[in-house]
């Protein structure tokens, strides 16, 4: 495939002059034929195997072969036919290159940056909880969802933002759909971000509460990051690699050291209650968002990225070596009854809500319309960065799903059921697990906790402990050495590290958004270096997610149980907003016949999010509907009764308040999304009638850069790059000669 063109060619705005014909040689037909056969075999095994020993590798290879085929064929179709990527057209990075925001970046480096920005704890948490439905629904949704929805959204938003000098999602909606849609999108983005931060923080709180080892290791990441920050600032500026090596070594020492908190006499001090952790996180979030970035945020980001890539690679290798068997059923009874203890609701729509990141994540549209589009060197690279980056995140989600599905089912439900159900003790939990139709003894539960040096695993909800337990099983089996406890805390550490990075970066982004919005009416407030504005905006953002976090931690019904659906729906609703923009732009660009590429995922996403929103708001089942839950507890309270799991009148009131807040938020998110959709529809109709409408796309400017399109450069591409570089060198030399020396650039 050759997508490289010589410099100076001009092309049309919408249809690229060169669309590489799929030249399938015999060899490539054979290769892709075998990939298809492998995929088909894996999927058949997954579809037919029931109640017997099924290896987790079937899932892994079903995923990998599906990704390969989707990338090779579908993403190529979208890039060249639907979007019409045009390599004769200069990207914003080339036109506006300033070495800072706009900066032509090597495609593989940019892929790394983009992946590090989109992937965090989300794809690790959702699939773990969705394992309640069995492994099959999650597997199918993660793979099919990413191919037809998630990766498409990321790539198309990236492309359209790139064609508009890297405008943000909100700006594009305002300009291409209208002011009302734009305002609704802005509020939705802000509100959704708050929920996401609260839920992520809740995962950390649940993982660290009552775990002195975890608190010790995670707590030490703060001084480690500070040390790295000062090192880079004062000792050896710019030496990021060496300080990251030092940081990772210290981090590993912190994990190992955690095992000795007992001997150090710190166990009692570090055994924190959930509420103490909430306070710590809120204070941390506030301080982190007003401290200079170099001091805490940037070094933490280096650590987090390094750990992210390292652990994902390790997990892939570990899975192949350990070849674990799936303990979870293909489809569980809870998928049909809708009364699972982890979260309420039936397979449809809740499996699609619980797994957002990894299949379809609206939040990515903010990244794809942020920094990444300003760094792309060639238009054709949107395919590997947008589509490829999301496939990689999906792979992380599949690995997490496998890690959760190889855990003994009794242990899985003991970890993930709320404490109101398990009673918190091995004996009561074992009895509760019995009522679910599984058998486990109190001794087994105690032994499982003992194996990873934790006092208990019962009701350690939130997903992180489950994933860490699964990872410790896989790694112990793969690498041996009886290191289960180390691997467990290693996994907790890496998940908490991601989340804290997301929390401090997110708080900062939220603060900037708030300052920018208020700045529209009070310009002074938008000055990001004006302390009163910075501090008050940070406090507002932290206060909002801190409140939701506190609610989540103290909810007797189980915070994750209540908040996770809200988080998933919010993220998917943001995806609906992003996909609506994609449909709008395709039609406005006169590509009505291809609008289905974004239209089908949009329709599906609206079906699941609106069904789920409807159920969460209006369902008469108090386990699902927020308002019927509210009514149930309110009427009991009116008669002076306590209703399980509440143990006091205060807890009754708490449940009532939380259910009301959650219900109102749920309804608000859905209404904001519908506002965007309904303001887009008239634009679609008008544009469809006229065969297109003018857009804010930047006109064609010829590109001079030559760079390969894909992960691996073809021979033609390499040759073209060599020729280009030779010409560049000659030009530079000639320029120097002409200008003489000493001319400032």
């Amino acid at each position, binding site marked *: 495939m050759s997508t490289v063109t010589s410099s100076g060619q001009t092309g049309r705005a919408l249809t690229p002059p060169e669309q590489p014909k799929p030249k399938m040689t015999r060899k490539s037909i054979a290769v892709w034929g075998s990939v298809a056969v492998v995929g088909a075999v894996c999927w058949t095994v997954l579809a037919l195997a029931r109640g017997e020993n099924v290896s987790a590798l079937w899932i892994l290879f079903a995923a990998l072969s599906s990704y390969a085929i989707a990338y090779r064929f579908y993403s190529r179709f979208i890039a060249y036919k639907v979007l019409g990527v045009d390599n004769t057209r200069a990207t914003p990075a080339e036109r506006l290159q300033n070495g800072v925001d706009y900066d032509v970046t090597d495609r593989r480096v940019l892929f790394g940056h983009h992946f590090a*920005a989109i992937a*965090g704890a*989300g794809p690790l948490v959702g699939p773990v909880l969705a394992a309640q439905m069995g492994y099959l629904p999650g597997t199918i949704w993660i793979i099919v969802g990413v191919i037809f929805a998630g990766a498409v959204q990321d790539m198309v938003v990236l492309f359209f933002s790139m064609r508009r000098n890297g405008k943000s999602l909100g700006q594009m909606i305002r300009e291409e759909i209208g002011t009302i849609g734009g305002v609704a999108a802005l509020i939705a983005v802000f509100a959704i971000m708050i929920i996401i931060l609260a839920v992520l923080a809740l995962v950390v709180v649940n993982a660290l509460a009552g775990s002195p080892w975890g608190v010790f290791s995670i707590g030490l990441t703060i001084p480690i990051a500070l040390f790295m920050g000062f090192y880079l*600032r004062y000792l050896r500026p710019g030496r*990021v690699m060496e300080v990251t090596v030092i940081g990772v070594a210290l981090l590993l020492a912190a994990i190992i050291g955690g095992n000795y908190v007992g001997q150090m006499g710190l166990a009692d001090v570090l055994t924190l209650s959930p509420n103490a952790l909430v306070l710590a996180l809120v204070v941390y979030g506030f301080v982190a968002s007003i401290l200079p970035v170099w001091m805490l945020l940037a070094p933490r980001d280096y650590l987090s990225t390094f750990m992210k890539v390292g652990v994902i690679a390790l997990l892939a290798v570990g899975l192949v070596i350990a070849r674990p068997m799936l303990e979870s059923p293909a489809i569980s009874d809870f998928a049909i009854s809708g009364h699972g203890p982890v979260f309420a609701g039936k397979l449809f729509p809740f499996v699609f809500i619980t797994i957002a990141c990894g299949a379809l994540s609206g939040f990515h549209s903010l990244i794809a319309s942020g920094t990444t589009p300003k760094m792309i060197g060639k238009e054709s690279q949107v395919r590997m960065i947008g589509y490829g980056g999301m496939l990689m995140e999906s792979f992380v989600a599949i690995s997490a799903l496998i890690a959760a599905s190889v855990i003994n089912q009794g242990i899985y439900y003991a970890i993930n059921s709320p404490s109101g159900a398990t009673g918190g003790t091995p004996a009561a939990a074992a009895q509760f697990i019995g009522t679910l139709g599984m058998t486990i003894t109190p001794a087994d539960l105690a032994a499982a906790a003992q194996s990873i040096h934790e006092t208990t695993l019962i009701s350690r909800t939130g997903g992180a402990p489950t994933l860490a337990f699964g990872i410790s099983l896989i790694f112990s089996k793969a690498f041996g050495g009886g290191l289960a406890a180390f691997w467990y805390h290693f996994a907790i550490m890496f998940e908490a590290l991601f989340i804290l990075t997301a929390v401090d970066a997110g708080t900062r982004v939220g603060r900037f958004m708030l300052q920018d919005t208020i700045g529209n009416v009070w310009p002074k407030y938008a000055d*990001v270096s004006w302390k009163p504005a910075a501090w008050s905006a940070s406090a507002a953002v932290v206060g909002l997610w801190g409140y939701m976090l506190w609610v989540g931690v103290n909810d007797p019904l189980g915070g994750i149980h209540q908040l996770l659906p809200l988080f998933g729906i919010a993220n998917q609703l943001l995806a609906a907003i992003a996909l609506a923009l994609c449909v709008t732009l395709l039609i406005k660009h006169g590509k009505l016949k291809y609008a289905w590429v974004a239209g089908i995922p949009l329709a599906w996403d609206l079906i699941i999010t609106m069904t789920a929103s409807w159920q969460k708001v209006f369902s008469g089942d108090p386990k699902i509907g927020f308002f019927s839950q509210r009514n149930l507890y309110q009427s009991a309270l009116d008669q002076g009764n306590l209703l399980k799991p509440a143990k006091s009148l205060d807890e009754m009131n708490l449940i009532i308040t939380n259910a009301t807040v959650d219900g109102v938020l749920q309804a608000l998110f859905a209404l904001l999304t519908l506002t965007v959709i309904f303001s887009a529809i008239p634009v679609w109709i008008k544009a469809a009638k006229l065969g297109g409408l003018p857009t804010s796309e930047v006109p064609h400017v010829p590109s001079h850069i030559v760079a390969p399109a894909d992960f691996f450069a073809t021979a033609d591409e390499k040759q073209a790059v060599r020729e280009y570089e030779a010409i560049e060198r000659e030009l530079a030399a000639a320029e120097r000669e002409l200008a003489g020396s000493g001319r400032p650039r």
Partner: protein
Amino acid sequence: MKAAALKAGRGILWYLKQSTGEAKWDEYLERCRNDGVEPTSRRDFERHRAEHNEKNPRARCC
């Protein structure tokens, strides 16, 4: 064999330098050399880059 390993090692080092932004400094020195300008100190250069990050927060997704 040895040549291939060396090449891979160089590739990895190049990738890490690019990803961490360390390469920016080398590129800056190269530009200064080409233009015949006296480069500023590394400390000032990195300060300048940090200043930019301060005003342009990058979101991290979930």
